[in-house]
């Protein structure tokens, strides 16, 4: 029962699977560890955390095993994240540290940057939709989308400014109209008494239409006035 020497913890939460290995792992545990972990990896999940912080590996044969795990997860289009912070594990995984994604803890992984989140979201949705995008293409599409949104925003902004200007102009003209109306009323009030005395004929109050209804009379009148002068 070599497997009996392995301390193992598996926790599932949504698409995340967290596996923790504890103990000292030598040659005798290699086969059972491979068997147990492979079986766990064959189940559902999108993001796999393998916490080896409290595990110590005494032989190098474990490295190819972890590379196999990484390969299997990649084939499943998932993410494989190794979690540890100890120096002994840093030394152990050093030859392949550029291949593995290594973080001190799950919390630290979640705090990593925009591209990691994008990758995580990408992994989740590629599983759900079947669509696959490389990070480069995803960023390019994202830039185009952002460009579209920026242009649309600029157009809307320009139109809003123009509308504001027109509103201001309308308001100014309206004010001017009110002012002129008021001036006109003042002037009419001033000449009102004279008009009542019949000293002034209000050309405005005389209907031009009544005069121009008969163009012949109108022209005769103009001629008479001219001759009288």
């Amino acid at each position, binding site marked *: *029962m070599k497997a*009996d020497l392995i*301390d*193992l*913890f*598996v*926790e599932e939460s949504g698409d995340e*699977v967290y596996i923790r290995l504890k103990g000292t792992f030598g040659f005798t545990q290699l086969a059972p560890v491979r068997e147990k972990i492979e079986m*766990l990896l064959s189940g559902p999940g999108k993001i796999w955390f393998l916490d080896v912080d409290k595990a110590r590996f005494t032989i190098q044969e474990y490295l190819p095993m972890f590379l196999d795990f990484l390969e299997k997860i990649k084939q499943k289009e998932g993410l494989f994240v190794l979690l540890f912070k100890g120096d002994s594990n840093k030394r152990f995984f050093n030859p392949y540290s550029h291949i593995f994604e290594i973080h001190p803890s799950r919390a630290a992984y979640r705090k990593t940057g925009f591209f990691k989140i994008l990758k995580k979201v990408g992994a989740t949705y590629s599983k759900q939709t079947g669509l696959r995008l490389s990070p480069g293409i995803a960023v390019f599409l994202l830039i185009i989308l952002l460009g579209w949104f920026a242009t649309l925003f600029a157009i809307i902004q320009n139109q809003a400014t123009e509308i504001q200007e027109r509103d201001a102009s309308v308001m100014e003209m309206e004010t001017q109209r009110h002012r002129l109306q008021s001036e006109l009323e003042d002037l009419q009030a001033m000449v009102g008494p004279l008009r009542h005395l019949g000293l002034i004929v209000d050309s405005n109050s005389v209907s031009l239409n009544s005069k121009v209804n008969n163009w012949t009379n109108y022209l005769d009148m103009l001629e008479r006035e001219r001759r009288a002068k």
Partner: protein
Amino acid sequence: MNRLKLSLLLYVKEPFSKDEHIFDENYRLLAVEIKKFLETSKVRLSLFLPGHIIEAWAKHCINELIWMRGAIREGRLEIVGGGFYDPMLPLFPTRLQELQLQKHFSVVEKIFQAEPSGYFNSSMAWEIGMTETLAKQGFNYALVSEDSLQESLGRSTRVVGWFTTEDRGAVIRLLPVAQDLSLALVQDYSSLSLKVASLPENEKIWVAAISVNLNRPENLHSFFEKLALNLIESDFQLWTLSHIFEQQMSDGRVNLLSSVGTDLGLPTGSHSCRELLIRRPESNFMHKSLLAANRHASSLLRGSDLSSIQNQLLPVMAPVYYADLYEDQGVRSPVVRWKGSRSIISVEDKIAKMADFRGRSVEVTDFLMEGYRQILVNNSKMGFLLEQNNGASLRSLIYKPSLVNMVSAFRQNGDVPVAFFDHLLDPSLHEIKQIEAALDDGAGSLKAPYDYQIERAEKHVDVMLRSEQIANVSSKKHVFHIDKRFALPWNDSSLNVSYVLSNTTFSEFEGYFGTELNLGARNFDGRSYSLKINGSKIPLRSALPLLYPDVSLMEFKDGLLSYAFRFTFSKPAKVALSLILGSDRSAAPTLVQGIRLFFFWNLTMKSQASETYKIQMDLSRRGFFL
């Protein structure tokens, strides 16, 4: 003849209650009697009270408390410190020990306005490793039993005075408690005077510790009257415990002391409270469950969340959950076990909620601390501990909505309780008593270790187990290859157990194959229990033990504890039902501790043939199964 110098400690144990920390009227009576005792007898006294009683005094006995504060200032009363729930501290991790001590220390300081300088525990459980923790908390001395000091010093003569011990750079003083003198003080005067006369004459101050029994409040008044009379008649010089260090010099140093006192149900000659964990599987499981909850909280939570959870674990450290005693005094009581399990299950539930954890986990770890691993499987509604090295049987089966652990009793022969523990039996057994005897005998039990594999699927997790099992049936050895599988859906309260048996020998097998479940239960009183087999109601108390053929459906319901389970069989099974009986204070085993179920089938297998059996177990709160 000189007057005998005596330091008397009165201590009280918090009575067990099914409810959470209710105020007991007896607490008020106790305060009144202690005040009266101090007033009338003019003695100097040391007193230890669990934290809840002190808190209850602060709310309901203000006058007595104010009087006692005055007595403390006058040097007539000393309050001794300890754990808030009076636990056997050596059993628990340092952090929990510290929390117990700090909580009690702060409540004494706040309510009595005095800092305790001594440490007392009613079981007098003490180990050298506690020195540092007690010294760190500011305690100057601890009380231990005289027997343990005698053993440590290699003396057979009386040990009186005080001693020092050191560990990891910390020192503490030890005061031996004379158990025989303590007992004599509450007996009649003639016995006491004989005991006093037998003590060696010296100038040392003897220490006695007397328990005040709150379970019999009617005797409280007479208890204090008798004690006061004995003290006056014997003409003792009485001092508080801390006064001993002002009056006397140290009597030497001791090392590697381990002490356990009384009231734990341990036999004479026991050296440590740890023996409870070996003697009682129920205590051991409670202890390991508490340690696991503390471990889970420590790994998942930080800061105030962690402290809050650890504070909720403190009540389960009370000695009642570990003592090998009956009724409501110890773990032999089904009610005590139920309350302990309930507390730990609810704490585990809170840990999962605080850690934002859906409770879907599989943990392979040495849960029972026995040197090999077990598999702990949890979903949001159920959990079980699988012992793959003990025939892949279940050591616990928890139904979370009702906060019950169904595998909480013991087996009829007093052994560790298990569920889905398999047997191959002789086909000539026809009567229930024969079958029970064969199960107790264990000759056909399939308990060889299994190799395991964990298989995760979208909606469930399976633990697959594989083993070659050898059983002795009808004086012949048979070898079977068994594939056993426990399947737990992630979001459902049901458990599927399946078996594939293959006869790997060249001889034909004929016998019974079955699986045994030892489930805890309360006494079958009233109508809250119901048992149905194939839809027919079976009267529990009168009909058991019972052998029932061709069962395809069996339902059991406990309306009071709000849980019910149903077994469905792929092939009609025979069911043997019997009660697990334990004794109370009388010798006769009459107290129902649980129910033993044995599901079995006739099995006739030719060489290399194989057979499949499936059992589905569904759980619900009210007995409605969808």
